[in-house]
């Protein structure tokens, strides 16, 4: 028993070494330097410039919360510092389990995990999309004069837990949230040519060729594709007719858009309209439909609600501490209220607590002047 107590005391003594305010200030200064180093270039800056000071601050917080009575005996300050520690831990868990990715979904097609692009996932990301089922529907994007993008209304059909399909409208700041995965529409969207390929002697295959983002690359609506088993590339150029108007309000949608597909194979060029076939040396191509694709940003972080909750709790703690501190002493009381002031010596010659007089002109300190309008 005595041995255990000694061990606890030794541990507390050890922790006290890391609980100093100087270490906290050093950690904050290093974090500030790290933040300055990453200014404007967070992806190109080594992650340790932020992680190392945060780790130092986490150790300092644990030590201070455990051993410093100025923190652990004041409920508000304790809650605030525990919240700071939890925020660091939650942010760490968030980075280990997060997922960031992009996705291009053609109208009428459903979400599939293997369609994800530019995936950036934490090593502990569960990687399960079993509960994520939705189908992209039509969408509209409003534009103001000067080609200023306005609201996006993207219709999606979501499979509920009961197995039914439910319609939703998402766009801009209204993500589609499914099983913690958040799908955000982006500026990246455009037109798609749905084509059926009938290879010579093979089975027909229907697929889509996404054109570059519209109207950003309005002048460059082209793409290319090489049929399976062929060496010859087929080039596609979509001649579009949309409601686009740089000087007026207009709406981008598939319903008010039409187009002609220019197909180039080798040195031959063909104009193909909706429903038409074109015979190429490698097979036959049919232009089935003109539709659109929407680019989504996918975000997953299971800690975000907890981060919010803990941050609010921390602020409540801090507010409680400040409120108590401010209420303990009237705003204009001359008595000292901080360690610095309690040192006994005046902070300065002017109006020191000991003299209660300004040194500059020896005029009396008019404390009453500050307490209200009764003068």
């Amino acid at each position, binding site marked *: 028993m005595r041995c255990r107590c000694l061990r606890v005391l030794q541990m507390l003594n050890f922790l006290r070494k890391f609980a100093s305010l100087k270490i*906290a200030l050093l950690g904050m200064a290093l974090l*500030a330097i790290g933040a*300055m180093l990453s200014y*404007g270039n967070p992806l190109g800056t080594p992650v340790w410039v932020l992680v190392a000071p945060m780790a130092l601050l986490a150790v300092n917080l644990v030590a201070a919360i455990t051993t410093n009575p100025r923190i652990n005996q004041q409920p508000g300050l304790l809650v605030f510092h525990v919240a700071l520690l939890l925020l660091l831990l939650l942010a760490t868990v968030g980075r280990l389990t997060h997922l960031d990715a992009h996705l291009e979904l053609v109208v009428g097609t459903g979400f599939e995990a293997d369609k994800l692009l530019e995936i950036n996932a934490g090593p502990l990301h569960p990687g399960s999309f079993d509960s994520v089922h939705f189908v992209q529907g039509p969408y509209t994007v409003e534009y*103001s004069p000067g080609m200023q993008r306005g609201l996006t209304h993207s219709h999606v059909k979501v499979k509920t837990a009961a197995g039914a399909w439910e319609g939703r409208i998402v766009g801009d700041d209204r993500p589609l949230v499914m099983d913690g995965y958040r799908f955000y529409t982006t500026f990246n969207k455009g037109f798609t040519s749905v084509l059926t390929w009938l290879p010579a002697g093979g089975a027909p295959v229907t697929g889509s060729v996404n054109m570059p983002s519209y109207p950003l690359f309005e002048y460059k609506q082209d793409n290319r594709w090489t049929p399976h088993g062929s060496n010859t590339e087929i080039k596609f150029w979509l001649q579009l007719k949309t409601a686009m108007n740089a000087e007026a309000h207009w709406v981008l949608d598939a319903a008010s858009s039409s187009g002609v597909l220019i197909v180039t194979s080798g040195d031959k060029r063909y104009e193909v309209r909706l429903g038409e076939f074109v015979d190429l040396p490698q097979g036959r191509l049919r232009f089935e439909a003109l539709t659109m694709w929407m680019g989504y*940003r996918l975000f997953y972080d299971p800690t975000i609600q907890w981060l919010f909750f803990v941050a609010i709790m921390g602020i409540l703690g801090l507010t409680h501490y400040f409120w108590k501190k401010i209420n303990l002493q009237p705003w204009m009381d001359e008595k000292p209220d*901080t360690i610095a002031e309690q040192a006994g010596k005046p902070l300065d010659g002017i*109006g020191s607590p000991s003299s209660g007089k*300004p040194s500059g002109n020896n005029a009396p300190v008019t404390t009453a002047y500050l307490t209200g309008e009764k003068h």
Partner: protein
Amino acid sequence: MVAEVPWLWSGLGAYFAATLIAIWGVAPRFAGMPVIQNRRHEYAVLAFLMLGVTLLAVAIAERWLRIGHGPWISLFELLMSQLWSLGLIFVLLYWRLPGLRPSAVIVLPVMWILGSWVLTLEPAASHFPPTYYNAWKWVHVGLGKIFLALLLAGVGLAGVLILRHTRRGQAWFRNMPSNVIVDRLAWRFMMLALVFDSLMLIAGAVWAQDAWGRYWAWDPLETSAFLTWLLLAIGLHLRLSYRVPPVVSGLMIIGVFMLAFATYFGAPYISPAAHKGVV
């Protein structure tokens, strides 16, 4: 001339009158007497500040009606709305805390940095990005305005602490309480500023999550705002734990304010991304 400009000029005129009267109230060479001891000039300052706030509110409303959205986007709008909110919160503090009234001679000229800046800008209509329809914008911006106004009030008192080291400063602020009280009052504003700054960052993170699909990405404005929060936290730790001389204390407050000022009025216009609403 667009509808809001005459109201803006009138509002700034009222602020200018308040500034002159505030200086006249404390500066012997303007008044021809040691220090004006009565409150009449303070009531005049308060009245002109209130008039300025009202006129700027009309200017903002006129612009809102003209372009169809609030003052969220362009630097012109940002400065105009900050002049209004800083004025409004300072009016409340000026009214409720008579002890800090002489510090108006520092606060109002600082506001004039914004006042003279806005006069150099074109009041062209701005585009309202789709991500700005989010209701968290109101919370984020509102909290930010309170934060900056509290910092500004702290700067006024910090200026008093520093200027009192000169003979003229001692004369100007002889009717204010001792440095101990001024210093404590200034840091109480900084405490409140930390609370509102933290809440602003939280509300901003929620908005960013909704608007751009991430709550924090170390973009220039976020980094700058975090540095401001960190500097404020460092300042409060130092002030609450060490014996900081008034001049150093004042300089710390001014340092935090300068960083916050650069964050508000510099960083959004350096970064071409997120916070300018182009994503």
